């Protein structure tokens, strides 16, 4: 009884995680929508994004949004990752992670049998999805730096295999984040209690 009382007073999600999550969501949505408008100015592939789902109105406006939101996105992201590492939250929440457990949890989830009684613990699917999207967001920053200032980041430029390839990397990392977000929102809709914990902390 006693230990349970102690546990319930400790929030499932610390305040800094909730704040950085929502700031990140705002920044990512702005960056994705304005990024689509920038993409449309010179498409890499044989399609354009529907104008109505883009942000900025014209190329110059979209660029202004993109390069305004990037500061929020980058500074907030650095905060989130630093606090996760320093506070030991990565280890506590995301460790252990393994392929066997992942496949098992996917199977359970597809069968609708994945338990969600303890929201303070992530299953393997959650762990991998959150870590992978964090990685994709870092790749977005690195490839974005090359597209933004290819001359000033020669090392990153060769890591991305040139300017044109950096655009392609930037595109696919965006696509990954968008697919994550779509699934993420479906999952939240399926287990709405998680949304409550992301606002209240419990």
């Amino acid at each position, binding site marked *: 009884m006693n230990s349970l009382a102690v546990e319930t007073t400790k929030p499932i999600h610390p305040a800094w995680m909730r704040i950085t999550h929502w700031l990140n969501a705002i920044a990512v949505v702005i960056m994705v929508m304005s990024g689509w408008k920038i993409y449309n100015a010179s498409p890499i592939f044989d399609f354009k994004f529907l104008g109505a789902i883009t942000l900025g*109105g014209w190329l110059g406006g979209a660029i202004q949004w993109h390069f305004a939101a990037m500061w929020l996105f980058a500074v907030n992201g650095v905060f989130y990752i630093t606090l996760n590492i320093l506070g030991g939250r990565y280890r506590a929440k995301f460790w252990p992670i393994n392929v066997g457990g992942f496949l098992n949890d996917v199977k359970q989830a597809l069968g609708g049998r994945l338990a969600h009684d303890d929201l303070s613990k992530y299953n393997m699917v959650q762990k991998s999805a959150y870590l992978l999207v964090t990685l994709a967001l870092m790749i977005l920053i690195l490839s974005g730096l090359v*597209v933004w200032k290819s001359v000033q980041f020669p090392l990153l430029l060769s890591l991305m295999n040139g300017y044109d390839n950096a655009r392609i990397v930037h595109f696919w990392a965006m696509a990954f984040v968008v697919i994550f977000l779509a699934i993420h929102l479906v999952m939240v809709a399926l287990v709405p209690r998680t949304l409550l914990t992301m606002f209240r902390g419990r």
Partner: protein
Amino acid sequence: MMKKRIQLLDEQLIIKDASKALGMPGRRLFGKRALSLGALSMLSGCGLTNENSVEKMLMSISRFNDGAQALLFDPTQLAQTYPESMITTPFPFNAFYAESEVPEIDEDYTLELSGMIANKDEWTLAALTALPQTSQITRHICVEGWSAIGKWGGVMFSDFLHRVGADTTAKFVGFRCADDYFTSIDMATALHPQTLLTLTYADQVLPAKYGYPMKLRMPTKLGYKNPKHITEIFVSNTNPGGYWEDQGYNWFGGS
């Protein structure tokens, strides 16, 4: 929600932007109609005043980004150069007007100098061609995202500035062009070793479509910062702005 976002823009900006797109051959007829339709829809029920504060905020962050890029700019860091085999052919034409409207400049052209420059004598093309020449094969990156590799030759701009006694402690170098384009750059970029007052493209006299008689070529800046058909160069401590920059493109425009 979406409608509101679209209202964020200054209608003038879209019309300007649209008229640029119109410049592309083949799209003109369609574009003229689209432009009037677009202009019409912009006039109907737009609360532009409400959105001014958002625009002001974005503009001031863009000014902040000028400063960030100036900090990031390393005056000794060279842009990548490429072998001749990697040159993009044909090199794309790009301007805020159609290729058929490229200005024609005659032989008695002279380059004017003004502002904080000691020797403001005019320069003929022959005199410029007589200066020591150099060339580079670099990547031109457009703000739209496409890029192309080309070979430009001409006078190192820092040599030229020193030769005419420009005050290189000043902040800005401005350009006025025969096609009514204008732009300006920071002094640090003006003095960068790859900043060239180009007189040739692919070892030929600079063709009209690439900016005859001269273009300032900077592989460290986006395309719209590289003025063509330059008729006047001036040095100043007040920011002269630019054709696209005044409409919202970032002023520093580094690449």
